[in-house]
């Protein structure tokens, strides 16, 4: 399952919920959630990375001026990559 998160870990508990609930597949960070993948931010992302690969949407990082701060082990994708991730996984869940 592809887990899609769009909220900052500072602003919502969403990423913590995913860390608790999600059993596998992959995680894609979009919109305000991209801040979770930047240096110096403490978030449940490290825990999630033990369970599944983590992707982050490049255009959202760039818009926020954060593209040079991405932490190691997170893969930056564009919208084409977003589409591919949805296609590759049997199902998806947008954690609203």
């Amino acid at each position: 399952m592809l887990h899609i998160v769009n909220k900052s870990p500072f602003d919502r508990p969403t990423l913590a919920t995913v860390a608790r609930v999600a059993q596998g597949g992959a995680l894609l960070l979009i919109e305000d959630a991209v801040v979770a993948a930047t240096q110096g931010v403490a978030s449940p992302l490290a825990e999630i990375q033990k369970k599944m690969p983590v992707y982050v949407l490049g255009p959202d990082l760039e818009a926020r001026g954060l593209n040079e701060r991405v932490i190691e082990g997170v893969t930056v994708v564009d919208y084409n990559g977003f589409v591919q991730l949805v296609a590759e996984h049997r199902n998806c869940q947008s954690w609203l």
Partner: protein
Amino acid sequence: MKFAVLINEGPYQHQASDSAYLFCRAAIAAGHQVTRVFFYHDGVYNAIKFAEPPQDDRNIVKRWSKLAEEHGVDLVVCVAAGLRRGVKEEVLAPGFRISGLGQLIEAGIEADRLVTFGD
């Protein structure tokens, strides 16, 4: 592959409609089909034809209309959510149509993937 999309927020206030549009465009460019975009909750506001954003900003409503025209994407505005908020035939932009929630469930049944964008 057949994609369907659900949008739960209006234009501008949240990024949902922007992200959904860029996702749809990328999916079509990659050779996939976007069968239906269903507008629910405040998502129904994406269909208001009177929208007139500043010249240097994107026109979210027109972008959706164009996608429908050029790629046959079925843009469905939820009738119940629309009535509650005053989004009816009188205000509808080209390419959008009003129908029931059943169209969302049908899209979920028929598409290979249903992707939701919201707050």
